[in-house]
């Protein structure tokens, strides 16, 4: 225990000079103002106020990252806010537009099913083989609850993926924040020993769902397994099958997003189950930013492995000096390392050569995306709450 506390004391990098931190935050401050206050951005007082609150929040979190030299904790505030506010804004929208969280069959036929990023990997094979999108949405903008089409969501996903790779799961996913928030509640995990074979879970689910979606010509994951249907929208239970589907959503949400993160302090849905996360891991291979371990400094203490919310560090990977391809670039391992052996890295450069420069470049890209996408979700959620109380 003493070593643990001592190690955590060593963690904090020297705070950056206040004026320099302000200077480094300036580009993000300007970006936030552009995103939330461009002409036509907010039409009413509640939306303007929500935009202002969100901009201040995003700028403050980035400033704190610059000032303290740490990433994870501040990113988590943002990420949990997205996770909690997304259902508020979304459910409100759904209730106003159709009066229920259940999607009636006529809305699916009309192509008005909201499209999130989760089914993207499931659509690829049917689209490649038959040019058919196996989702009851609209391809061009104008369909879907929010007016965005499938093409627009896929375009947004491609752009963000190009910038952050699997960092999507830490800076853009609007579901992961719920379980990250749950995992942050307990001081210590109740369950410490986790079988490393669970890491293959998302790949197994991905393979099964891709094949099933091709065979059944339907987004099988959305219809049967997505835990987040419990807090967004679900299949309107017209019959016994619908009831079973909704039962599965609720059980998976309760187990993987609420109970297990509380017991393990890990993002269990992401680590063990999420097929989109597994798919997104592939893009870590082309991402220019990564997390490396400087083996000249590393004295294997497993602090980084314990801190990783996604089981992306193993004894073997640490020995190799790198994180596994499932790394979400959340920064937990970098922040916790007492010897600053775990570092942000740009491919092609030497490990631990100016890691702060690599961190800055990554964070500018990732935070710009976070402000644009996650920030808009936060603003919508706050705006919904303000409308409710107004």
């Amino acid at each position, binding site marked *: 225990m003493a070593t643990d506390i001592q190690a955590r004391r060593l963690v904090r990098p020297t705070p950056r000079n206040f004026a320099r931190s302000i200077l480094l935050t300036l580009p993000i401050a300007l970006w936030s103002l552009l995103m939330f206050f461009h002409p036509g951005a907010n039409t009413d007082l509640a939306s303007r106020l929500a935009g202002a609150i969100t901009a201040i929040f995003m700028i403050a979190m980035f400033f704190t990252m610059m000032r303290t030299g740490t990433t994870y904790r501040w990113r988590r505030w943002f990420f949990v806010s997205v996770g909690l506010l997304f259902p508020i804004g979304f459910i409100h929208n759904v209730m106003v537009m159709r009066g229920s969280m259940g999607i009636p069959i006529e809305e699916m036929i009309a192509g008005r099913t909201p499209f999130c990023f989760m089914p993207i990997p499931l659509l690829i094979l049917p689209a490649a083989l038959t040019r058919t999108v196996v989702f009851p949405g609209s391809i061009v903008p104008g369909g879907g609850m929010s007016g965005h089409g499938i093409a627009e969501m896929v375009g947004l996903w491609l752009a963000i993926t190009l910038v952050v790779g699997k960092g999507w799961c830490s800076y853009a996913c609007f579901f992961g924040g719920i379980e990250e928030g749950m995992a942050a509640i307990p001081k210590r995990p109740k369950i410490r020993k986790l079988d490393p074979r669970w890491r293959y879970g998302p790949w197994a689910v991905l393979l099964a769902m891709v094949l099933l979606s091709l065979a059944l010509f339907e987004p099988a994951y959305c219809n049967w397994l997505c835990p987040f249907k419990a807090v967004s929208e679900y299949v309107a239970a017209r019959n016994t099958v619908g009831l079973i589907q909704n039962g599965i959503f609720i059980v998976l949400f309760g187990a993987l997003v609420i109970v297990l993160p509380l017991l393990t302090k890990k993002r269990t849905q992401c680590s063990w189950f999420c097929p989109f996360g597994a798919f997104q891991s592939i893009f870590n291979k082309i991402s220019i930013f990564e997390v490396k371990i400087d083996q000249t400094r590393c004295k294997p203490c497993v602090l980084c492995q314990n801190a990783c919310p996604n089981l992306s560090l193993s004894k073997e990977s640490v020995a190799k000096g790198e994180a596994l391809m499932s790394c979400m670039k959340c920064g937990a391992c970098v922040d916790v390392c007492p010897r600053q052996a775990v570092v942000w890295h740009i491919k092609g450069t030497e490990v631990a050569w100016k890691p702060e420069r690599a961190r800055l470049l990554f964070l*500018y890209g990732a935070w*710009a*995306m976070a402000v644009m996408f996650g920030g808009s979700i936060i603003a919508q959620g706050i705006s919904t709450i303000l409308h409710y109380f107004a």
Partner: protein
Amino acid sequence: MKLRAKLGYTAAGLTVLAALLTPFLLMGMFAKGIVALRLHVDEMYSGGPKVRIFEHGAYSIAVHRAVYPHMLQTEKPFVQLDWSPVNALPAHVSDVVDIDGDGQPDIRVSFDVPKDPKAQLRVDVEPIDQVNQVSAKYQAMRNAGKEKYSRLIVRVDNSILVRVPLKKP
């Protein structure tokens, strides 16, 4: 600095640039690329393209191309018919429809049009050939609601859609 490192920093700089261009250019460019692939939503959801339209005075009936399930899809083949506009329909509709365009009526479709747009719809479909004791191409439906994609009556915007399941050949 080594060439690899220089390339690494250049790529990192381009990544930041890509982030800045995302809302103004990149996202839209990728979206246009997806649209240019000329994909279409599965006809099990969309009902397939319209092949002919019959005018019935103030309203019209659109006949869609028959939709057949892919691989292990659990639905039956069906054909979709749209009655529109809803506000021009009488309180009770009972129309014979020539689905295949051969000049002979194929089915009689009967349903009530409630004034409340959220009211449950029910439909009866009677294959005309069945009346003549000839093997019918279309399945009969009695008091059907919205059980399956291939067997339903629903109101979508200003149309009433009826999906009639086909008999297996």
